[in-house]
């Protein structure tokens, strides 16, 4: 799924996936949560991050002065 798009398009894609995996009835019940998540995705996706080397340890320790065990 491409993310750098309007919220409504992202929500539509998520709803289609939800219908495929959980059934159309459940997908309809998930509409509010899908809308919330689509809103978040639409907010963060446009931020371009340059490739300037690695991203050290961010999955384990999100803070710069944190040691990786």
């Amino acid at each position: 799924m491409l993310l750098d798009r309007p919220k409504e398009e992202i929500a539509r894609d998520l709803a289609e996936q939800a219908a495929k995996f959980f059934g159309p009835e459940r997908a309809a019940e998930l509409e509010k949560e899908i809308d919330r998540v689509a809103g978040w995705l639409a907010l963060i996706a446009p931020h371009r991050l340059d490739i300037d080397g690695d991203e050290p340890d961010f999955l384990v320790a999100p803070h710069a002065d944190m040691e990786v065990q």
Partner: protein
Amino acid sequence: MELHELSVAQAAELIRKREISPVDLVQTLLSRIEQLDGELKAWETVDAEGALTAARRCERMVGAAELPPLHGVPIGVKDIFYTAGLRTTCGSPNYRDFVPTFDATSVARLRRDGAVVLGKTVTVQFAHFDPPPTRNPWNHLRTPGGSSSGSAAAVAARMVPAALGSQTGGSVLRPAAYCGVVGLKPTYGRISRYGVIPNTWTLDHVGTLTRSVEDAAILLQSMAGYDPMDAASSRHPTSDYVAAARQKDRPPRLGFVVDEERRAQPEIAEHLKEMAALFESRGAEVREVRMPRPMSELLAIRGIMCEVEAADLHAHLLRERPEGYAPRIRELVEVGQLVPGVAYIHAQRLRRRLRPQMERMLDGLDCLLMPTASDVAPDPSTTGENWYQGVWSLFGFPSISIPSGLSRDRLPLAFQLVSLPFKEETLLSAAAWAEAVVGPMPSPV
């Protein structure tokens, strides 16, 4: 002063001086729970027998040359922390009969320092946001907030002087604000999460709910420090937090965060302005600062991380035992599984890149000053929103909520202070100063 009104510091001192009995203290609090909890529903499990046994043991030791700092002091433990031999339900039928065989590191350290576990406090299911049965002691038609609902309500209602909470979004500070108690969330990695059922991995923090800043410092002192069992635990040296909290004479330099998206309700926004003016009049340096990015964007980053990490944690159990899941966490786990991996990585990278900008907000300042919550406690169909708290869970900065009076509807008001990572001593000193300026919070019951 009646026994149930004692703070952690007061109880510890009086026990040490043999002026009160730890057994009497536990019995008094058990009676208070008996009297109030039918309505408030702050406790999931009360361990009367275990607490009395521990208190009797403490009583026998009184008079020994040196006693640990929390000797005989009762505490409550949010029901997502492992407690050896005492069930840990996570608020879910799926864990109804789960009895851990060991204590979470935080609980073990508090017990090592003499604390007596009175029981387990109600948590929102799996520490997310489905409304709990717990009621707000100030008004039973309002939520106590979540997810550390029972801990905040029990401390506010004087059923216990202190309790453990945990925060992924705003689960310590928001219930603290709604219930009129002090909520402390230290730096990410400062207190071990080992033995705490995870909500996520990169956002979870252990925190405290108390009735004073000094008590928060005493609990932090006990629990802080490296734990090899938690991959995110920090080796950063600890400080003398208790001494910092007792240093109340230095007015802090405060950055009053401009609420550019105007999320706070008018009464809250007005109250924060009054607090800033009050602090300035008492000698604090107050200047306006701005968030480097809109709060809505920062919370979107946190939201994606929370959704995806929680989805991975719960996907299998949800498939096997869906009946044990409340509606909102079920929705979160289902939709979280649909979020592309690239979005999660992007969110993590954004957090990493934005963190230095967040730190620069505190240049030349001790703390940021902002609302804890956008409104007073709402009705119990929700646990409130994490607008002002979630960003500090995202970046791992230490934050504290201080009660600061009552609203027109006689519900607690609060403000939040935030400092740089691992600067808890700065935060606690500023918080203790501000607490002294604002004055004591009355009891709701």
